[in-house]
């Protein structure tokens, strides 16, 4: 009796252990995406054929827009080498079904995007298809309905889908970046598409506005403003200009950041004497103090699971990055190289923390593993600050002053592909990337 019982539970443990060992292997062996690989180490080549208009006359601008957006997104990803090619005849029928792969194959392409669109007044319908040129088959298709102005968004969205098909992970090309610019003479908050298009002013108060952060649903931002004299934290929707003071406590109300689940806001308050890290409920109530230290503590950054917070503190003399549990316990130093490390931002995947380090030559962006290992410098040119991760952790956006042009730049998480995305000649500051 007793014997059987023990054997039974032992068997259960054994099965459980086997499951633990085998489950990841099973999951890895059956990807939910189609693996597309080029022979050898050659990079895959993607052709984007001109979109075919279903209504004449054709809109050449629209056609170029679609090709340019998908090519830019896919080239930035580094996963494929993409280019726009015009081969589709304007009046051909069934272009999405009967594809002649031979000319694409002979030009050395592995993948092909084709699309059709209909623009009636303001009503836009667009359908995209991705083909595997070598195996002559369709990999994915998407159809979008919307207004004429949505063509950009739809193109970015299909680029997300291409990335999902190729890598198994959806892209973040439909996300946006909020930032600070002083183009009016005052620092105001703006928002733009991730690729720098559609810049839109949010604040227009003529004061100093700093450090925007998106809510996890991307519909609201918080930021610090001096518009009523004191550096207070405000919250507003992207679609409604009404600004609500979320924290106007005495002293600093700065470097606010939404928790990953949107329920809390971490920030630095100096109401009790010097800058300390607090969390607030999302309505600004119930301040909970996390750091107790006579030094300056600021710039909190949540881990994606919401259990830890990285922050800047000069408790050892110079600003360094520390990590603590979300209740303020278990404080440990993260960065051990360099003597001025600031701006921590946790990767959405949780494995790395991006930050900026000041040396004699100015600031550069680094990443470090969450356990403090693998400290890696990503930028070398000019002055680079305030890194922010894309939702898919593939890219880092940062502000840069460099000879090739000041602005907001985007690079891959390994530092490659550094590309300026802002178009103006102003200085831009404190970019922050929205979640999906």
């Amino acid at each position, binding site marked *: 009796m007793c014997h059987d019982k023990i054997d039974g539970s032992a068997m259960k443990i054994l099965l459980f252990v086997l499951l633990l060992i085998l489950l990841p292997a099973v999951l890895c062996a059956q990807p939910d995406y189609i693996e597309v690989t080029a022979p050898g180490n050659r990079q895959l080549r993607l052709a984007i054929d001109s979109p075919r208009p279903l209504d004449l006359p054709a809109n050449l601008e629209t056609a170029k827009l679609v090709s340019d957006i998908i090519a830019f997104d896919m080239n930035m990803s580094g996963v494929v080498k993409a280019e726009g090619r015009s081969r589709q005849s304007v009046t051909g029928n069934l272009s999405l079904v009967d594809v002649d792969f031979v000319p694409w194959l002979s030009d050395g392409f592995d993948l092909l995007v084709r699309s059709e669109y209909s623009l009636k007044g303001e009503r836009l319908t667009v359908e995209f298809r991705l083909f595997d040129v070598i195996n002559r088959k369709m990999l994915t298709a998407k159809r979008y309905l919307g207004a004429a102005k949505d063509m950009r968004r739809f193109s970015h969205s299909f680029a997300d889908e291409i990335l999902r098909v190729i890598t198994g992970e959806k892209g973040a090309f439909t996300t946006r970046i909020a930032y600070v610019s002083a183009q009016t003479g*005052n620092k105001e908050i703006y928002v733009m598409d991730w690729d720098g298009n559609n810049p839109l002013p949010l604040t227009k108060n003529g004061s100093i506005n700093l450090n925007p952060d998106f809510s996890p649903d991307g519909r609201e931002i918080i930021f610090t403003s001096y518009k009523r004299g004191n550096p207070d934290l405000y919250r507003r929707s992207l679609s409604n200009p009404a600004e609500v003071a979320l924290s106007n406590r005495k002293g600093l109300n700065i470097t606010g950041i939404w928790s990953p689940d949107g329920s809390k806001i971490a920030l630095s308050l100096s109401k009790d004497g010097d800058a300390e890290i607090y969390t607030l409920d999302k309505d600004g109530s119930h301040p909970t103090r996390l750091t107790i230290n006579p030094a300056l503590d600021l710039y909190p950054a949540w881990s994606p699971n919401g259990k830890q917070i990285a922050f800047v503190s000069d408790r050892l003399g110079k600003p360094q990055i520390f990590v603590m549990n979300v209740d303020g316990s278990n404080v440990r130093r993260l960065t051990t190289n360099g003597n001025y490390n600031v701006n921590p931002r946790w990767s959405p995947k949780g494995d790395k923390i991006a930050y900026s380090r000041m040396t004699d030559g100015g600031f550069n962006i680094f990443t470090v593993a969450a356990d403090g290992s693998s400290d890696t410098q990503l930028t070398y040119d000019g002055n680079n600050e305030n890194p922010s991760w894309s939702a898919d952790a593939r890219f880092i956006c940062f502000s840069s002053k460099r000879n090739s042009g000041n602005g907001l730049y985007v690079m891959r998480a390994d530092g490659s592909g550094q590309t300026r995305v802002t178009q103006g000649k102003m200085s831009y500051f404190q970019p922050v990337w929205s979640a999906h």
Partner: protein
Amino acid sequence: MKKSMVAFLTGISIAALLAGGCANKEAVKKEEAIVPVAAVEQAKPVEQAKPIEQAKPVEEVKPVQEVAVPMATPVAQQPAESVSRFETVYFDFDKSDLRQDARDVLSKNAELILKSMPGAKIQIAGHCDERGSAEYNLALGEHRAKSVQKYLTTLGVKAENLSIISYGKEKPAVNGNDEAAWAKNRRAEFVVVK
């Protein structure tokens, strides 16, 4: 036999859990000795405190990369009188403790407050130079204003008449990116608010 079986399974479970990526290693803890900065301060040549008029951008060359930096404007819309009557206090890089020249200036400012405007409400605005991160400088500027506030109260100025604010590096007194400009921007200014 049974026990060894259970122990064996437990062993496998632990091994599996470890292999399963419980990579929660503790971050490196490294304590650095904090260098006492006050001693270093004293050894530095005492810089003459400059009245604020001299600190205004007159012949400063505007660097090309600084086009978008907000123009140097006096803190708030203050009457010219209050600007001229108080002297500005200057700091060393990344420091908020008061140099000897700063203490001299504060003694004069305290005397002015106590003799001529005992009930005036005065705001001390802390500022930083353009180096360092904008966010850290907000906190540093506040620390500077606080040092000034604390020192003035030791000289007899009523604490309730003194408020502080920090502008970090957002409102430089002068544009420029050399030590001459930086030295003029690391400061605490006095504004009569009432």
